[in-house]
Structures are given as C-alpha cells and as structure tokens.
C-alpha cells in the first residue's frame, strides 16, 4: 500500500463489514463501519457521537482490568495492516512501540470527502489505542478529525490514559492523533492545490477562447464542459 493509502482499498474493505452493534468478531481484513450503522441527523458530529458511545462502553466496565481486556478486544478487531504499508512514511514517531498509520481521503458518498484511517502496532495496548481512535475517526469529515483533541479520548479512562502526560513523547494517543491530523491537513492541502490548478487550467482555456474574439473584456466565464 502506498504511503498515502488508496481510498479504494478502504472502500473495498468497508463494503463487507458488519454493523458495530452485532458485536461479533469480524474477520481481520474488514474495516469497522461504525458510521454505516444508522443514518445521522444533519449537523451531528459523527466522530463525537462515536467517541461518546466508546466512552460509555468503557465506563460501563467498573474494573480497570476489564477495561484493559476490552482494549485488547479492540486490538484484536483491528483489520490486518498490509506489510507493504509498514514504511517509514507511515510510521508514527515518538511512541515506544512501533505504530503505523495509513491515511486516505475518500470522496465516496454524497460527494463529501471523508478521511479513512488504518493503523497497526507491535504492542497490543498501542494497537488497542489505535483501534479506538480509528473506530472514532475512520470515515469522519476532515474538520471532525482536526477539531478532536487528545484530552477528548481521556473520557475512555482506560490504561495509559491519554489525558495524562499529553506532551510526553510516549503518549500513543497523542502521537497517533497528531499524525492523523497532520496528514489530513496535508491531504486536504494537496487536494485544494490540485483543484486550483484544474480551475486555473479551465480559466486559461476560457481566456484563450474569449480573448481571440473579445480582447480587453471582463473576466471570462469558465466554458461549458459540453
């Protein structure tokens, strides 16, 4: 898989996933489609909603050991990460464990860009963290990804609480989220630049067509694609 993962890989995997509420163990190569479980009212932040559900799930487990076990369950449910994706460009720096993160922008439904994430780690606990973050943010709008903070995940109250030592270089939650946000910004910036170049190309074509018959006129309209 390329460092900037192909969104088609995420889409193909997500077609086969089961709704979260069925709670059956998914095959390793499926992506959890939490966002496909039920339609959201307009304006509802899906990522925040999923985070709230996740937090409630962990908080419902009173014993810290049970929360750790649930975290390891999430780790086991993370889809397999292709070996080809374990490249330096996908490595999340700063963690004491090795963590890989793949990011793609998906223009799937309704023409809205959604961010797709896949992650893996050689540490089961870090893998559990990754699984939780991916559960919340996979399929989220770019703005939902960017406005999330590490402290938000403190609501899970699970081992290695992200709210503690946020600025520590070994805070996996912080490192993974920062990496997600950084690469989301980069992808969006690259897309905007590409769109501007395309817009500029159409503008130039229009100018050439217009200028030959209407020199000195106002800014030309973008010609019809027909």
């Amino acid at each position, binding site marked *: 898989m390329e460092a900037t993962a192909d969104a088609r890989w995420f889409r193909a995997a997500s077609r086969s996933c089961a709704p979260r509420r069925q709670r059956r163990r998914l095959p390793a190569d499926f992506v959890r489609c939490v966002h496909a479980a039920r339609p959201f009212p307009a304006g509802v932040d899906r990522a925040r909603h999923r985070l709230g559900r996740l937090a409630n799930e962990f908080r419902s487990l009173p014993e810290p050991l049970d929360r750790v076990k649930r975290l390891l369950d999430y780790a086991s449910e993370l889809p397999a990460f292709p070996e080809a994706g374990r490249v330096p460009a996908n490595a999340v720096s700063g963690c*004491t*464990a090795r963590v890989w993160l793949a990011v793609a922008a998906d223009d799937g439904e309704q023409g809205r860009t959604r961010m797709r994430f896949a992650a893996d780690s050689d540490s*089961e*606990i870090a893998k559990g963290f990754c699984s939780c973050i991916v559960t919340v943010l996979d399929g989220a709008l770019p703005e939902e990804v960017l406005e999330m903070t590490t402290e938000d995940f403190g609501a899970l109250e699970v081992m290695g609480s992200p709210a503690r030592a946020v600025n520590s270089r*070994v805070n996996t939650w912080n490192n993974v989220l920062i990496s997600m946000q950084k690469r989301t910004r980069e992808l969006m910036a690259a897309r905007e630049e590409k769109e501007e170049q395309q817009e500029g190309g159409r503008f130039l074509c229009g100018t050439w067509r217009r200028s030959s018959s209407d020199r000195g006129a106002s800014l030309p309209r973008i010609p019809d694609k027909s």
Partner: protein
Amino acid sequence: MAASLCHFPPAVSSSSSLFVGSKSRSLLLAVSPFKHFPSKSSISASLPWTRSYAVSNDAAAFSVASPSDLRESPSLGEITRPDFPILRQVVNGFNLVYFDNAATSQKPSSVIKALSEYYELYNSNVHRGVHYLSAKATDAYEEARNKVANFVNAADRREIIFTRNATEAINLVAYSWGALNLRPGDEIVLTIAEHHSSIVPWQIVAKKTGAVLKYVELTKEVPDLDQFKGLLSKNTKLVVAHHVSNVLANLTPITFSGSVLPIDEIVDWSHKVGAKVLVDACQSVPHMVVDVQKLNVDFLVASSHKMCGPTGAGFLYGKINLLSSMPPFLGGGEMITDVFQDYSTYAEPPSRFEAGTPAIAEAIGLGAAIDYLSSIGMEKIHNYEKKLSEYLYYQLSSVPNIHIYGPAPSDTVHRAALCAFNVDNIHPTDIATFLDEQHGVAVRSGHHCAQPLHRALGVNASARASLYFYNTKEEVDTFIQALKDTIEFFTTAA
C-alpha cells in the same frame, strides 16, 4: 485493599541468605499493606536495632554502624528508605516500587532540604557580589565543586566543570576539544552500546571536522575487546566508552580479572596510540567508587540526578592541562577576563566553561547528595547492590520465556543492579504499562537511548528494571510476582 496484600512477598528462600535482615518483620519497613508507611519515629521506636544508629534528615549525623551483637541487621535498602519521602506513596492503589533508577534516582530529604535552604536563606548570584549573601552562595557553590572533586579523586578542583548534565558535558568536549583537535580522517572509536548522548555529539562534530566514527560491536552481548584493540591505530584520536552500560549492565572494571572491557587497559591501549579517552560514568559514579586518577581517563562525565542529586546539574572531569588548552564552549558572562568591542579574553578553567549564571542551587544540591552518599560509603553501596543485582538477575531468570541482556553474573563478571529484558511475544511497553497500572511497579520500556545497541541485539525495544541502594530484596520479589502476573494476563488474553 485486598489487591495490596499481594505485595506480601513469598516465604524467605535459601537465596535470601545473601541479605541480612530479610525476615518478614523487617518487611514492615519496605512493603506495607497500608496506604501510609509508618513514620520514622514509629520505626525507630519499634525496632530493636534502632538503638545502634541514628536515622536523621541531617546527612552529617547519618550513621549506618551495624550492631555489634548477633541480632540481625536490616539491609541497606531498609535502612535508607525512610530518607526518601517519595518512596512512601501509593500508585494506582499499590505501594510504589520504583525500579527506574537508571533513568533518574530519587532524592533524600537532606538534598531537598539543601535546595530549600539555599533559596530560603542565601540565594544570590555567585562570583560577583561583595555582599554577605553573594559570598555565602559563592562559598557553597565552590564547596560543592570541592566535594565533586574529592568524590572522584580529581587531582585539582579546577578539573571539575559544572554543566547542566552529562549530555552537556560531552557536548562541551565535542565542540571544544573535538572541534580544535579533530582533522579529516581522524578516528573516534566508540562502542555500539553507548548512550545516544555519547554518540550524537560526535556524529555532529565528525561531520564538521571530517573525522570518522568507528564502532566496537558486540560479542555475546558485551563489547568485543579484541575488535576494540584492532580498531585502535595512529588515526585514533578519541575513545568514548561507558563505564557501566545502562542496558547490558556490564561493568567496565578496573582490576577484575577475566572480565570484559577493562577500562584501565582501554585507557592504557588508547594512550599508547595517542588517543584521548572519554568515559561516560553516569551509571557508575552513583553506584561505586570511581577514581579518575586511578582510571587515568582524560575526560569523565556524570549527571547529578542519577546520584540522588537534583536535575539540572552534572559535571565534566578533565585533566587540567587538557582543559587549559581548550577553547570556550559557550560565550558570555563569567567565562571572560576582559571584553572589548572586537575581542575578548577568557578566564581559566573551570570558569572558562561555565558561561552565565550557573545552576547554583542544583550544584549545592549535588554537593548535599555527595555528602549523603559519602556518609553511607560507596563501597557499602556497591557491595549491597552487587548482591541485589545477583538476586534480581536470578529471580528474573526464573521467569519463563525471558531473555535478559548482558552477561550473567559470576565470580569474575559483576553486573550493575539493572536488567534489560524481553519476554517472548509480549511487547515491553505492554509489560511496563501493565506493571504500572495494575501493580504500581515503575520500570522503563523502549530503547533507553541506545538505539544502535538494540539494533545490534536484534530488537526494537526492551523493558528495564534498574535498582538503587534504597531498593530491597522484598521489592524484587514484588516485581517478579507482578511480572509473572503480567505475563499470565497477556498470554491468556492472546
């Protein structure tokens, strides 16, 4: 608090005969099922041996004379723990077991008091003012320098340069001595087991000067002495070596026979080819007698915070003839004699290398730490830690599917009181996280600032338990039990 009761250690085994006073009653000092440790006064009143010595926050009054009668004596860990307030706390519902001393040590009350007293009673800038407070601060700061010089047996107090830490001390040598003396093609020999602070400054300076770094690889998880001898040549200008590895725990001994990497011989061989020797003593100065004259090293560095002193202080030892020939590292106040518009003249060592207002309180705190350690005696500390190290190693060896890095202890091979290890199929970070969250045991996980070493060992990371003289055999037992519980959890969950 049922979970805390699991910290009661198992029955005393035959291996505990190395440890005096390892019966269950002495455990009240080290491991308590209750949230609050007993106060010092209750300890003193309840224990029969307390009439033999005085336990006090005042390091000068501290005495560890063993009772002359046949009653059992408590271990050094049991005696000294009350001096460390931070050790008396509950973490995640469990009594803290602090096994991360190679990263930083805890501070006795006497050091904390020295820092407070400085700021409460005589805080003032040093070497400048003529008033009472300045004179007192200057005297205390320079007295700390004398203490460091005596502690490592430096021939001259001017051979001690205060720095922020050992890393800064190494950078000082690299940017001052290194920049002046290294030429293209010159070689710097280091071991693959060096701390990043002993590697990266030389990478930077080598790039600037055209010098070349040559590494001594491992054989059987210790630096290869034969390869080291083979690397030395007329091109070798500097040898950089650790005294004690923070991962492999191997000592680079002075006089032990049959041991690996004898540092006195390294110095001898290096000097014969005209090379200088810099020794990283961060993991040795806190734990044993280090005599720079006996070692005959050219440079030696150590950090205060690893030897019961505060963070923000460290020191460089350098032979005075070398220091006198070296240009300044940092420029500014204090290190000058005269300043003109277009040039300045510089002070003699040590001032030449101490630009700006120094970490005065921290240096004084380091002096107080040396007082405390000296009152115990470095030989006593070393002997106790040797036994603790062996106990830790052999108890850890009994854990299934574990690999401990570095040599096994024997009559001729002495390990430092630390073990870096891995357990099959369980990431060290998972181990460290679970030990902390579920047992209150603090160990380190990661590469321990030794990435080249970990690559040479074929692993990405390891867990590390590192002890100091205030740790006890009972804490080792607690750690081992917690580790077994951790391994069982992850094995079952898999």
